[in-house]
């Protein structure tokens, strides 16, 4: 059919509710059977995204969706600077995560030059008796590409990874995993002739010397753009305080100070304090977020980062903090 795309020179960014968009594409069999052409356009004058299906038998379906807002969150992450890179078919990773219970929130990925494993993660303090521990390990030979320079153990949210893997499995694409030490983001990405997709997840820094969880900085979430690590350090608190308020599922926004103040090195990482350590990432649960906040304050007391402005200034939920960090001094 004659569906000619009309391009304009302007780049348009907009956000649509998945709830409104998904039902239009839900019935794939009927789409394959009936739809000859689908045209998606954005009305410049009004806030509409127009999705038109030109179907057989002279039937046209037009859906006008209002978009929510025109701002988009930018994820900035330089995967080429990561020390560890793995490549595996999506199926391999999918088969591994399948074994974790559905309610499992976070998992720990552990990589050494000789071994790769995934195990479930539970915050300390949870009842150890009721838990089922699961650990799966793979030999490096099972990967298409396995490059681990630095032993690393990273903990991140499983839910986002599951979603990503089920998408990549359906396309039978190999998944690239870029990661570093705990606290730095991990990136899962795929590429195809038609598209590229990536999910950048924050990882937990866990200090085994103290029981509390150290905070880390920026939350980034899924776009297909990478940013220089250097840029990560430069964001102002105030600006991202706003962005941070946008919570997407279990992710949490935060920023770090521009000053590269060293945070004490953690026992499990072998990396020295790089400047970019000031950029740390945290997994996304509101509980952890408030813990982060508290922990920064305690650093304040310890004179480590005397001039560090508070991260997540918008999230001072004191009650919650008291509950999770009873020993920390109040703000």
């Amino acid at each position, binding site marked *: 059919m004659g569906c000619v795309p009309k391009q304009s020179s302007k780049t348009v960014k907009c956000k649509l509710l998945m709830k*409104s968009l998904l039902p239009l594409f839900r019935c794939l069999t*009927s789409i394959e059977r009936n739809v000859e052409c689908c045209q998606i356009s954005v009305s410049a004058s009004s806030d509409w995204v127009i999705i038109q299906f030109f179907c057989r038998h*002279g*039937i*046209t*379906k*037009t*859906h006008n*969706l209002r978009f929510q807002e025109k701002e988009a969150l930018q994820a900035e992450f330089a995967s080429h600077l990561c020390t560890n890179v793995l490549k595996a078919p999506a199926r391999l990773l999918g088969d591994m995560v399948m074994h974790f219970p559905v309610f499992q929130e976070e998992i720990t990925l552990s990589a050494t030059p000789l071994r790769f494993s995934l195990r479930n993660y539970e915050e300390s303090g949870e009842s150890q008796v009721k838990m089922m521990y699961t650990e799966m390990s793979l030999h490096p030979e099972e990967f298409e590409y396995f490059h681990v320079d630095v032993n690393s153990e990273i903990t991140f949210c499983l839910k986002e990874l599951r979603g990503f893997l089920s998408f990549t499995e359906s396309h039978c694409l190999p998944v690239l995993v870029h990661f570093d030490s705990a606290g730095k983001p991990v990136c899962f990405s795929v590429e195809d002739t038609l598209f590229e997709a990536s999910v950048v997840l924050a990882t937990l820094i866990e200090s085994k010397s103290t029981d509390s969880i150290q905070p880390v900085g920026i939350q980034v979430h899924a776009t297909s753009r990478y940013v220089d690590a250097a840029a990560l350090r430069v964001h102002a608190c105030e600006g991202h305080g706003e962005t941070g308020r946008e919570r997407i599922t279990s992710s949490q926004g935060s920023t770090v100070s521009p000053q590269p103040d060293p945070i004490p090195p953690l026992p499990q990482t072998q990396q020295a304090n790089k400047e970019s350590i000031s950029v740390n990432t945290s997994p996304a649960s509101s509980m952890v977020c408030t813990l982060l906040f508290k922990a920064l304050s305690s650093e304040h007391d310890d004179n480590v980062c005397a001039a560090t402005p508070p991260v997540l200034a918008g999230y001072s939920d004191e009650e919650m903090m008291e509950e999770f960090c009873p020993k920390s001094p109040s703000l």
Partner: protein
Amino acid sequence: MPLSTQSQDDEEHYVLVASLDNARNLSNILKAITFKDHAVFTATPNGLKVTVEDSKCLQANAFIQTEIFQEFTLKEDLVTFQINLTVLLDCLNIFGGNAVAGTSTALRMCYKGYGYPLTLFLEEGGVVTVCKINTQEPEEPMDFEFCSTNVTNKVILQSESLKEAFSELDMTSDVLQITMSPSQPYFRLSTFGNSGNAHYDYSKDSDMMELFQCTMTQTNRYKMSLLKPSTKALALSCKVSVRTDNRGLLSQQYLVRNDDGQICFLEFYYCPDEEVEEEEEE
């Protein structure tokens, strides 16, 4: 298969006797109009008409012609009663609702007249069940005065094309807007939901469009909740005729083929939504 369990006396007292070798030829079509508990049955020499109404805005009629029945005896010109349709359907399906290949339930429906219950004799595999369902004073069905002379727009579509549209309709929309016009968009179904609006356009040249007779551009809105019951009728049918008259009243007529390939009709009348029409969003 004639049921021999009745006495000859009873036969003479019945004002209506209707028999079907396959009760499904009645129950399937009645399922499509069971959106209310009560229905008015009207028997005339032409056959049986079952009417269900809702809120004075919607009327559904099922027509089962005399020819469909293996026996249809009427001692009066018009026999009418009101009955609980849900109970009637339960009785018709008393041997189990699922169709088992090779078996069917035979039905003999008998009515002695005003004040008497409706008696159903149902037989399957040699087992006979007798059901007596109380009848009520029939309410006068509404007369929408929808006549062909007032029809402004009429289309006949193959049901296949509408089935998909109806299954995809945005249910967050309170109304379904129908636009019929001799010019573009010809025949359009529109919804106005929480996230935006949607339009389904059927071209007059579409091979799904069997008949297209539109004299003027008309746009009317109908409550979505009223239109829902008709989706069952749509699912059963092979063709549907959509007509509007000068008052915006909507008439849908569905052509249904039963198990034996015979034709029955289902008809729905809708009153347009009385709210002030908003500016149409394009």
